[in-house]
């Protein structure tokens, strides 16, 4: 039951995210949908993920977004965009794009339902944070190291691109 509530919230919030013209609203709605997701994680007996979902995602990343939106005192998306830019950018083709999205939903749905049946959950014991930690630093140690390089690169890049003109 809870699943449908959370799921409904997530879908609704996400839809609203992309229905908004005002980025700030979008960000806040996204945070809402993340909340719903973390709820789902809890249902899936993944409390650890649920927590970092809230902390890292909602707490850190979304705040970063908000920060940037504020920084650029995010203008409302201009509605008077030039329709004469290119035929492909007018409403018609874009509706076609939307159709594509719908098609994607249908296809994925089909895929996942026609897939071999993994209906019932294996009733393995609740995975503890400790287990996660162990596995993370044993089996996934190398991947973990790689993420460090990833973060480093991202840092450097962000700094270069975003810092004020030195000249």
């Amino acid at each position: 039951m809870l699943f449908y509530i959370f799921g409904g919230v997530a879908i609704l919030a996400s839809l609203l995210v992309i229905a908004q013209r005002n980025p700030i609203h979008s960000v806040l709605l996204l945070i809402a949908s993340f909340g719903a997701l973390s709820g789902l994680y809890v249902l899936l007996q993944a409390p650890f993920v649920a927590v970092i979902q809230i902390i890292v995602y909602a707490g850190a990343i979304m705040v970063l977004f908000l920060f940037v939106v504020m920084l650029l005192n995010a203008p409302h998306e201009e509605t008077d965009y030039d329709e004469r830019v290119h035929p492909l950018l007018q409403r018609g083709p874009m509706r076609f794009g939307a159709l594509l999205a719908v098609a994607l939903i249908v296809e994925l749905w089909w895929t996942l339902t026609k897939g071999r049946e993994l209906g019932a959950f294996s009733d393995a014991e609740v995975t503890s944070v400790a287990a996660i930690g162990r596995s993370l630093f044993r089996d996934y140690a190398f991947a973990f190291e790689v993420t460090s390089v990833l973060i480093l690169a991202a840092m450097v890049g962000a700094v270069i691109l975003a810092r004020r003109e030195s000249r």
Partner: protein
Amino acid sequence: MLLLIPLLPLVGFLINASFGRRISKPASGAVACGAIGASFLVALTAVWRLVSMPAESRAIVDQVFTWITSGRFTAAFSLRVDPLSSVMILVITGIGTLIHIYSTAYMHEEADAEYARYFSYLNLFAAFMLVLVLGSNFLVMFVGWEGVGLCSYLLIGFWYQKKTASDAGKKAFIVNRIGDFGFLLGVLLIFVRFGSIDFQEVARAAATLSPEAAFGTVSLMTLLLFVGATGKSAQIPLYVWLPDAMEGPTPVSALIHAATMVTAGVYMIGRNAVLFSHAPQTLTIVAVIGTATALMAGTIGLVQNDIKRVLAYSTVSQLGYMFLAMGVGAFGAGIFHLYTHAFFKALLFLGSGAVIHALSGEQDLRRMGGLKNDLPITYWTFVVGAVAIAGVPGLAGFFSKDEILFRTYASGHTVLWVVGMLTSLLTAIYMFRVVFLAFHGTSRSASPHDAPSGDAPSRDAPAHPAPAHDAPVHHHLHDAPPAMAFALIVLAIGSIVAGYAGLPSILGGGDWFARYLEPSFGVLPVEQVAEHGLEGTLMILSSGLAFAGIGIAMYFFLTNRRAADQVAARFSGVQRLLLNKYYVDEAYDATVVQPIKIVSQEVLWKIIDVRVIDGAVNGVGETVGGFAEALRRLQSGSVRTYAASLLFGVVMILGYYLWR
């Protein structure tokens, strides 16, 4: 040894061609005459050796080297003298020498370089002509065959700055090429059929066959060969080049377009007598075409006003006789006429040359007249020639032409015989028309411009600076200079006596000429006609015709010219038709030449090549370019379209997977 005969003129050619512009006229003239003269002497010795052989094995072969070898095909460059070719080489070198000598005087106004060039060409021609007649297989003959064509091209166009001259040369060459096309195919067919191109072997192979009742391979190959002959020997339908060839210097006309080259076709048929005699259908065609040509040319000759053109048409007509002879199987007679004709026609041409020379380039009969007293030598020799060709008994022409007509009648081609007789009448008329118009009466050249229109204007060679028109031209009239006179006299004598070589048995002779040639014609014997009575009557008849013709000519063109004009006026249509040579040139131009040019220009090149083929090629490129532009537009620059295309790809791929 035989090689020397063509080689000497070739050396002369090389000398004059390479050093000509540095040595003086007498020098180059001497070189040329020396070369051809020497070759004449060699030829004489060769023939002497030949006649000293037993009759049935009379042949000297000189294998020079193997020219082309390819698989089972081999063509040796080998020369062969037998009775037939011996006659030819004597005619070529002998008359050739005379004409060389004549030319030294005739071409005297030319600049040194041009003079040398002229003689180099003349020598080269002699060389090729000798190769033609000496060649012992088709390919060597073809070398000469093409070579003489080239030389005639060069010599006709000798005064190259005259458009008419170079045009005429080109026309001659191309028309000849059309003939060669047939000749070549004939040779190919012969090789494929008999596996050899050597005259002797082909003859031997053909002899085993029985004459074709229906039109078969042999008939086809002989017919193809004959096409070549019509080109070279100016027969219908390819005769058109010869009259134009008169653009060349007169001695050239005498040598190439009267005495030697144009008879190559006749010689070729004689050379392949065996082959032809196995193709009766072809022979009939030959005979008919020969007769038709003879008649047609004779009629045209009647009205032409250019003295050389009259002679040219007369040549065509006489060649027609020769082919008639060949066609009725009287090969000996044909060659005999070829041989006598060489004398008197060369004589006539040289005579006309002397006249033109004297009148400093004037060739229009209507502007001549009364030259009898000013140019005695020319006059008398010319008359001799005319009498000879007209067939007055006792002179060369009489015997040969008579032989032909008699054989025609004997072989049962009565129609052809009648036409032949008619033609010989015409011959007498037009020849003596020339004689009377040119040499008798009063000089008409003082008033040049009242000439009746309709004929081509007078041709004055640029070599003669004084245009013919400015009257009066008779002030500096001088008879033929010694060199020319010598040639004229010798030829005149020849025209008188040459005929007795073939004196028919009825007149106490023994057809020596024909008997001498027999071995060359291989199997079939010169059939003896039993009753001399018939032959006699025909003789009397034809000689009567000759005199009649002379008489008619005398009436119309000597005693009262009015009559001639009245007749001309009465039949003005006919006259115009004849003056314009039956409009054959025009017809060819309209039906062949222009269509080809226009189609090539407008259709083949401008449309098919440029538009269709090349258009297709470039079209491919343009198509690609068009696609490029179109696809390029998809790259709108907006990241959203890019995302859309990406998603499109996703949906497609997933869709494909689910659909299958």
